[in-house]
């Protein structure tokens, strides 16, 4: 199978007036095409940092990141992003429709095609007819759906998300988790998600990358051998689910 993302020996240091913070140390892993991969680790370990490197928002101090074999220097075309803080990543001055349309303006699409994409993306996330609403008129969960729709509308082959469901309530969270699984099925999209919620990582992923330590290294890559389709009711009560989450939890906590 082809490799969508390759992280090769990536290290990252932040230079601050107080000195240098070494955040990532020689991190390497590969994401297979079509896989759902989660990155977990304790708070402050460097998950967001890694994601910023992957999306070209920052450059590693050592190593390289390849997206479909090409070394990235800025945000790769093929990749769309959903950030944690939807209130600050959706533009409050644009309607839902215009928020989604903004990145599409630079793709060679006719007006009708663009409209088509917006309608289809909103339908995919279950927000038909919300085009003319402003983001702040929607609930948190709905806003995050808009973020997902915006990402999908550019038809990326890779979707990257930073703690996308951390600021919504539990029920909405379950709904959104099932939504991203559906999206993955519908589009065969490669998905990379950062989360601090280990249950969520086990529920969604094919593979979990565990970051641990200061500076952070890849502690382990755990294969989640629970078959798809998964369901909130059954998968979370599966014995294998319990085993895996205990295992991952132990590593994140540095107990294993």
């Amino acid at each position, binding site marked *: 199978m082809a490799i969508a993302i390759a992280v090769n020996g990536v290290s990252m240091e932040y230079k601050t007036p107080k000195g240098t913070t070494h955040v990532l140390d020689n991190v390497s892993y590969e994401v297979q095409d079509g896989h759902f991969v989660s990155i977990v680790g304790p708070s402050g370990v460097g998950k967001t940092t890694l994601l910023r490197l992957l999306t070209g928002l920052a450059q590693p101090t050592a190593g390289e990141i390849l997206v479909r074999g090409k070394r990235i220097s800025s945000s790769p*075309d093929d990749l769309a992003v959903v950030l944690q803080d939807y209130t600050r990543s959706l533009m409050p*001055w644009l309607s839902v429709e215009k928020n989604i349309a903004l990145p599409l303006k630079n793709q060679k699409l006719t007006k009708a095609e663009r409209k088509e994409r917006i309608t289809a993306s909103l339908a995919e996330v279950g927000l038909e007819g919300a085009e003319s609403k402003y983001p702040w008129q929607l609930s948190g969960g709905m806003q995050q759906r808009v973020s997902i729709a915006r990402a999908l509308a550019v038809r990326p082959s890779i979707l990257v998300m930073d703690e996308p469901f951390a600021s919504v309530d539990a029920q909405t969270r379950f709904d959104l988790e099932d939504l991203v699984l559906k999206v993955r099925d519908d589009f065969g999209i490669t998905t990379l998600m950062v989360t601090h919620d280990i249950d969520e990582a086990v529920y969604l992923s094919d593979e979990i990358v565990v970051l641990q330590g200061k500076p952070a290294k890849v502690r382990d890559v755990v294969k989640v051998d629970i078959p798809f389709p998964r369901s909130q009711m059954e998968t979370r009560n599966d014995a294998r689910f319990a085993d895996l989450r205990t295992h991952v939890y132990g590593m994140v906590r540095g107990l294993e």
Partner: protein
Amino acid sequence: MRLLNSRIIRFLVGIWLPILLIWWWWTWSADSVDPFFPPLSAIWEQFKFNWIWQYVPIHVFPSLRNLFAGYFIGIFAGVTLGALLGANPRVSRYFEPVIDFLRSIPPVATVPVFILFFGLDAQMRIAAVAVAACFPTLLSTMQGFRATDPTLLDTGKVFRLTPFQMMWKVRVPNASPIIWSGLQVSLQIAFVVTIASEILGSGFGIGAFTTISIDSFMILDAWTGVVLLGLLGFALNVIFDLVERWSLRWYIGQKKLAS
């Protein structure tokens, strides 16, 4: 319905004092024989004669043209420069003392300097208005740009927005609540400078008309000029408020929801 009611109430609350003042002026001046304070009724008759519409083309149109030309040039420059400086704090530090110095000069006092450069043409008046209008917008834009949320900029970058989109679809709208307050001050200053610039060496414009009337003891005419300026300034502010509220409806709506 409640919205409508509250609007009507606000209008009624706002209108009674002006009505009272006009009534007071009207009755107080009714029997006036003082040539400098003619009866309001006489001013009103003369006002209708002068400004509906006989002198509008030769005096109101030039003033409005200078005002709008100068204002729009000024705020365009103000937003552009303010954006560049606000987005590059390291560069802006070198310019801030100069800007602070220039904006401290009362704009009306700069008119003679513009006469040196441009003579007594309309260009001089437009240039003076433009420069005066530039500063409040420049400063508010700089301030608005400094506070840009990094998440917003990251979002723009990961969706590969062009620098143009970054500027006009992300940074400017984000700063727009603050920019609008600068635009309003700019409009008020632009109006003052427009009229003041006509006092020197011009036969046309409301400012010129009023000055010439006083100089030739046409007191009634001068009064109609003053009343016209008041009405015009008021109308400009009302229109400005409407445009601002329309443009910031997202911001107003969001704030209402949060409160």
